[in-house]
């Protein structure tokens, strides 16, 4: 039987042991204090392990090891973080190794993946750690050779002094370096001298992935553990009665346990559980709102008309503006629920033993997993260990700890180690979804087609604030009113890649297209005029940098040959989210009589690009994700149960459905900002606007293929 490799902490301690005499740099990966870096001896590392949250060690062999705390789910952080350290260190990249750390809240203060925040958070700290290591290594070489440190150069892990013709690799100086103390200040490199940052460094886990090594939670196995699958109640219902006789009769099933409104079948392998789960006879009864999609549609419309709204932003006098308007444009946009559907279904291993608990599996928030378990078991969080496996996708789903909770409950009930696994049907029916939302936009135009008033009212399910009130076009319009209404649904909802903006951007960018049409303006021109206003004479607070908006918009117009070819029908969308700016243009051409989506051009300003391969991946992946869900995917409810239960009806985008995607990155001179999410929000708008340009049909709901406006449009997708 295979056992997932469990390096983590033990391996770290091993490194400490085997590299006695090596150099250790402890640094605070992401704390809010100013970066603090210290050189430590082996003993000090062991003694002070709590004072620092990340380590860089250099062994006498010259091997560089970086201990990485953030969960890896495909955003490539395990590759891009060490690149930053290695850059300032001038290390030989082939000698750099990265180890995934376990949860340790005392050491890491932001050990989570979400919000595209890791790189912006850690950029300066990573650089300083690398630069400090280099500084002490150079000082050690200077001391050894008795030459001035200023005359020493470092390249690819080799230290040289030209005058005395001396060279040596890092490893030769680590012993002396570890006796020196860290400088107060280090000089960071000029960005133009970067050699590793900005180059397409390959995924550090590539070999393991492509040979099928056990790395994911789903692959975890330990001798003696049980497997479990769980039947959950429909939303808004509870168990009335249960008969598990037939399920228990399935060979391989060892137990059936109930907790809350969930029933777990437990056994020695997965397949018998899939069969047994279907044999459970459970009757449910209402326990709150039992909702269907038809109810949501009605509730949305009613709340938009009559609901009490929370005013998020108010500039000027909106009523007056609309009263004096020459023209008013109004439109409503709505999106459905969506599941996250990471390819690796939810799963987790738990072993509860008395007042201790061991947790292993895929999570974006290891600390939440631990806190949840502590609460259920009534034991101190320190008694719980969490080991993070590689994540087979997350998209926000693994920010929640519901499946960790289940693993803990089942382990406690059977008094032994267990791994719970969700089927795809479980993932789609028992999920925590991107909530449905409906927006109403209104714009007041004067005679010249200028926007003098702008209103947005959003109503969402468990969404809190459904708007981004300080985003564009706020700041560019004199009279603005932004309102939000939240409805409490019994359906569980959760952050989904680019929360709120994953749909708001599409709605807003489509609406601006409607406004441009009504104002008789070209969509690029309309935006540039608004930016000018926000730049020269801003109204109220601006949540975005206008110059960066202007730059990506102009660049995408140029790169996409905006408006130059009458045979190409184009749609523009520009959006700022998660600290980055992305502008996209979709191109539709007539091909053999059918409107054909040929390409999407994207211009991104995410500050400095650390790894072009990773950046390309995130932008193209975000666009494919945004396009797929805008075009094809729908999740509807009937009596608290989703109708789409697997990929045969819950339609995800496939290879033949993606057009050519051209990505461009603007070097704005800013430090790196987030990239896991920002490319997704603008895509739906770019495509919808191109469809309008090509066919005159305005799509105000998703998924497009299910809208009646779309029913007779035979949209082809082709790469040239």
């Amino acid at each position, binding site marked *: 039987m295979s056992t997932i490799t469990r390096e983590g902490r033990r391996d770290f301690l091993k490194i400490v042991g085997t590299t006695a005499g090596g150099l250790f740099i402890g640094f605070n990966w992401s704390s809010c204090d100013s970066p603090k870096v210290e050189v430590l001896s082996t003993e000090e590392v062991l003694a002070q392990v709590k004072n620092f949250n990340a380590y860089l060690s250099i062994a006498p062999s010259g091997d560089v090891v970086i201990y990485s705390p953030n969960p890896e789910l*495909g955003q*490539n952080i395990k590759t891009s973080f060490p690149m930053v350290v290695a850059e300032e260190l001038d290390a030989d990249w082939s000698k750099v190794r990265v180890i995934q750390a376990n949860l340790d809240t005392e050491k890491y203060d932001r050990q989570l993946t979400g919000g595209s925040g890791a790189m912006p958070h850690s950029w300066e700290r990573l650089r300083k750690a690398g630069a400090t290591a280099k500084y002490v290594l150079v000082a050690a070489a200077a001391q050894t050779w008795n030459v001035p440190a200023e005359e020493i150069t470092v390249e690819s892990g080799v230290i040289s002094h030209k005058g005395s013709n001396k060279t040596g690799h890092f490893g030769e100086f680590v012993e002396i370096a570890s006796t020196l103390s860290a400088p107060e200040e280090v000089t960071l490199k000029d960005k133009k001298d970067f050699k590793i940052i900005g180059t397409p460094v390959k995924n550090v886990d*590539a070999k393991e992935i492509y040979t099928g090594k056990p790395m994911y939670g789903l692959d975890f196995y330990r001798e003696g553990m049980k497997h479990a699958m769980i039947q959950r109640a429909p939303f808004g219902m509870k168990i009335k009665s249960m008969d598990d006789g037939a399920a228990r009769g399935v060979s391989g099933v060892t137990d059936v346990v109930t907790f809350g409104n969930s029933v777990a079948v437990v056994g020695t392998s997965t397949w018998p559980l899939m069969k047994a789960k279907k044999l459970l006879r459970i009757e449910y009864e209402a326990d709150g709102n039992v909702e269907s999609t038809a109810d949501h549609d009605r509730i949305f419309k009613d709340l938009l008309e009559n609901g009490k709204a929370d005013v998020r932003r108010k500039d000027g006098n909106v009523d007056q503006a609309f009263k004096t308007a020459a023209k008013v444009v109004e439109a409503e946009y709505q999106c459905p629920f969506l599941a996250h559907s990471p390819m690796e279904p939810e799963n987790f291993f738990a072993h509860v033993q008395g007042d201790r608990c061991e947790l292993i599996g895929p999570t974006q928030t290891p600390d939440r997993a631990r806190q949840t378990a502590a609460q259920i078991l009534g034991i101190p969080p320190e008694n719980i260990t969490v080991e993070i496996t590689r994540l087979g996708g997350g998209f926000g789903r693994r920010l929640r700890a519901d499946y960790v909770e289940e693993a803990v409950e089942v382990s406690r009930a059977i008094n032994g180690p267990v791994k719970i696994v969700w089927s795809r049907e479980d993932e789609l029916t028992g999920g925590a979804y991107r909530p449905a939302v409906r927006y109403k936009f209104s714009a007041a135009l004067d005679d010249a087609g200028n926007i003098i008033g702008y209103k947005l009212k959003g109503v969402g399910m468990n969404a809190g604030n459904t708007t981004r009130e300080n985003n564009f076009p706020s700041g560019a319009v004199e009279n603005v009113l932004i309102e939000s209404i939240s409805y409490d649904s019994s359906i569980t909802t959760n952050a989904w890649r680019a929360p709120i903006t994953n749909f708001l951007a599409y709605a807003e960018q489509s609406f601006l297209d409607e406004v441009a049409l009504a104002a008789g303006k070209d969509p690029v021109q309309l935006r540039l005029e608004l930016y000018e206003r926000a730049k020269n004479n801003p109204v109220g607070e601006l949540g975005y940098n206008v110059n960066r908006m202007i730059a990506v918009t102009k660049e995408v117009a140029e790169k996409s040959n905006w408006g130059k070819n009458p045979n190409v029908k184009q749609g523009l969308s520009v959006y700022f989210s998660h600290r980055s700016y992305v502008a996209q243009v979709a191109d539709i051409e007539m091909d053999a009589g059918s409107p054909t989506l040929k390409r999407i051009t994207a211009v991104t300003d995410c500050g400095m690009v650390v790894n072009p391969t990773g950046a390309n991946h995130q932008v193209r992946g975000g666009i494919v994700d945004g396009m797929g869900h805008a075009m094809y995917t729908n999740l509807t409810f009937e009596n608290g149960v989703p109708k789409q239960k697997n990929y045969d009806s819950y339609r995800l985008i496939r290879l033949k459905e993606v057009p050519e995607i051209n990505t461009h990155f603007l070097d704005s001179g800013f430090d790196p900002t987030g990239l896991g999410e920002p490319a997704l929000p603008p895509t739906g708008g770019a495509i919808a606007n191109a469809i309008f340009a090509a066919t005159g049909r305005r799509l105000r709901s998703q998924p497009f293929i299910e809208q009646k406006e779309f029913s007779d449009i035979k949209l082809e997708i082709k790469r040239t």
Partner: protein
Amino acid sequence: MATLNLKINGKTHTVDVEDDTPLLWVLRDHLGLVGTKYSCGIAQCGACTVHLNGNATFSCVTPVSSVGNSEVTTIEGLSENGDHPVQKAWEEIDVAQCGFCQPGQIMQAAAFLKNNPSPSMEEIDNAMNRNICRCGTYHKVREAVAQAAKTK
């Protein structure tokens, strides 16, 4: 329960399982070959793709009792050192994001190229359309298959 002898990656394995157990779960739960992934279980996504006598097959809907004497190849047995031309192309093009779908993509591509060593882009698209990648690595999948075809 039935006792079956399975030929997997050039070795014979004996397993005691119910006849209707999908090959996928025999590989994963009984033999510890977890490179073959589960994602949908209904022949929709391709994460579970293995080779049966060289043909790409969804192991999630293949009852183990139907395997008989067929040669099963999983990602673990595709090459000795991870250097099958398709694996090399995947490394070269740096295809993966989260990576979970990639063993299935690689097995699909390897079987496809064996039967069609110099495919057109359209043929590549048709073959690889069977596999879902939630991270959206489709452009690179396509590029890597084309590259593997060239370097073979």
